[in-house]
């Protein structure tokens, strides 16, 4: 087939504008497809980085209710729980509502021991424990706002009234790029004391000795506090985070339907192109057949042309998506820890391009095979 390549190439370039428009249409559509699929893979990747070796315990009523910090000691006693820490959602506003990022008041002693994937120097951790108004910012947040050690950050409380001042004492580096670091963590004692020895926390984080026993341990935790003033709900960190995503609705179904619509739309465009191309060339195909090209050979030529167009579009579309998102550091305003077009996505885009090529080429190829030379040569000229 390689000997036909120059001929196939010439054919695709015959109507340069049409081929260009078709390729562009495929590029644009597959770029969009890759973007949408990356939404799914990025969500999955961020869930992957959530540990199944950690449990999150919260108030069963809802996350907006708190748990007594005194539960901590009883949680530590539960068999299978290796370490316990806690965090409380702060929900403050930085300058104005548009600058949204997560803020937690955290256990100054154990939190970073349970989350070793957020890397801090011993000195940073030490300062954090000692300074009442100390805060740690994630690497991504630090980059976004240019926060450096020593900077003061002022937040306006929404859940906790008032104006709160923090001093950056460290920047946490993520161990893997899929980790979200678009956050600010501050010494929980500051919150506790400001509220007059408040003694409550939002969630406990439990480090498990054996991740395989996560289900059992979670059940035991919830049974321990059943029928108390503050009942708990315990689940793995992964399930906890999945819960947030599922609250938004069925994102996957939406993305899959959009993906289907996009693929159908490009099928229509590329099919149209191949049919136009083949229609204009009826006579030439007849000539080729007269010269001794078998039906199979003309089918091959038509299909190859179609595939060449769609695959070039596919490679460019997937390549563009990869290039744009890898270079731009796009995170949808911090919604995704990392927005990376995976090899699987690229492979799927190329698969679609292949499918497009075959589907678009099949009708004209079939017509070419069926074409009666005598009829086609008689028509014009």
């Amino acid at each position, binding site marked *: 087939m390689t000997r036909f390549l120059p*001929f196939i190439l010439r054919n695709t370039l015959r109507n340069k504008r049409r081929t260009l428009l078709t390729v562009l249409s495929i590029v644009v559509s597959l770029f969009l497809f890759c973007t949408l699929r990356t939404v799914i893979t990025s969500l999955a990747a961020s869930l992957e980085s959530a540990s199944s070796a950690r449990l999150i315990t919260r108030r069963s009523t809802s996350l907006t209710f708190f748990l007594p910090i005194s539960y901590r000691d009883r949680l530590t006693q539960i068999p299978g729980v290796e370490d316990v820490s806690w965090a409380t959602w702060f929900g403050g506003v930085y300058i104005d509502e548009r600058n949204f990022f997560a803020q937690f008041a955290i256990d100054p002693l154990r939190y970073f021991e349970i989350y070793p994937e957020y890397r801090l120097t011993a000195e940073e951790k030490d300062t954090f424990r000692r300074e009442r108004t100390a805060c740690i910012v994630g690497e991504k947040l630090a980059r976004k706002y240019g926060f450096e050690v020593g900077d003061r950050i002022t937040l306006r409380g929404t859940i906790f009234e008032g104006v709160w001042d923090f001093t950056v004492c460290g920047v946490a580096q993520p161990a893997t790029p899929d980790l979200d670091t678009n956050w600010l963590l501050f010494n929980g004692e500051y919150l506790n004391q400001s509220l007059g020895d408040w003694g409550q926390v939002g969630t406990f984080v439990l480090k498990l000795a054996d991740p395989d026993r996560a289900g059992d341990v979670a059940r035991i935790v919830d049974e321990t506090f059943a029928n108390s003033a503050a009942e708990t709900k315990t689940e793995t960190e992964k399930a906890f985070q999945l819960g947030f995503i599922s609250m938004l609705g069925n994102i996957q179904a939406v993305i899959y339907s959009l993906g289907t619509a996009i693929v159908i739309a490009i099928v229509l465009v590329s099919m149209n192109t191949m049919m136009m191309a083949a229609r204009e060339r009826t006579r030439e195909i007849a*000539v080729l057949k*007269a010269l001794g090209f*078998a*039906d199979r*050979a003309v089918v091959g030529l038509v299909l190859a042309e179609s595939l060449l167009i769609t695959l070039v579009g596919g490679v460019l579309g997937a390549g563009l998506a990869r290039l744009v998102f890898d270079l731009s550091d796009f995170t949808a305003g911090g919604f995704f820890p990392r927005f990376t077009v995976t090899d699987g996505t690229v492979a799927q885009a190329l698969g679609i391009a292949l499918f497009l090529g075959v589907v678009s080429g099949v009708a004209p190829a079939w017509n070419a095979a069926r074409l009666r030379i*005598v009829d086609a040569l008689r028509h014009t000229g």
Partner: protein
Amino acid sequence: MSVAAGQPIIALRGVSKTYRRDTIAVPVLAALDLDVAAGEFLALMGPSGSGKSTILNLVSGIDTPTSGRVVVAGVDLGGLDNAALAAFRARHVGFIFQSYNLIPVLTAFQNVELPLLLTSLDRRERKQHVLDVLDVVGLHDRSDHYPRQLSGGQEQRVAIARAIVSDPSLLVADEPTGDLDAVSAAEILDLIGRLNREFGKTVVMVTHDPRAAERAHRVLHLDKGVLVESVRRERP
């Protein structure tokens, strides 16, 4: 070549051809017999619709008779499927069309090379063959030109080079000079005559032009499906 000079290279026996136009059957040829000897130059003349092109289509294997036998170069075309017919055409038949039918996006060289892509020749061998036949038609220096950069006569010469590049025994020409001016037409007819004389190609040519028919050894007039021999010249 499988057929010795003087032996019939084409034998049509009791060939009929009927076209269907909607529900009406239009008979074009009825019980036609025709022999063409190897090395012969035959011209077919007749009014349009007389069936001369149909004969050309039948002997070149791009159309099949309603009944009767067509044997060309020792091959009975009646028994062949589409793929075998394609192989037959590639091996035995060179086509020369009225409107040249060159592929506009390919150069003269590439157009001529097309039939060779179906052979097992490698790139170097193909190049040699193409340059050889371009020499024969006198267009060696135009091998990189595209059809639109050539005159009509030159285009037809490229088409002729394409027809002979795979060395078929039979050339079929359908009004080869129909689109050409008198000077170019004469050149093309000279070339076809030379291919017949010097290279031993059997030529079957459909034409309206009496000056073209003059070049043939034998001229057959076709009228309402009946062949009438009008001229027979001795071959030189």
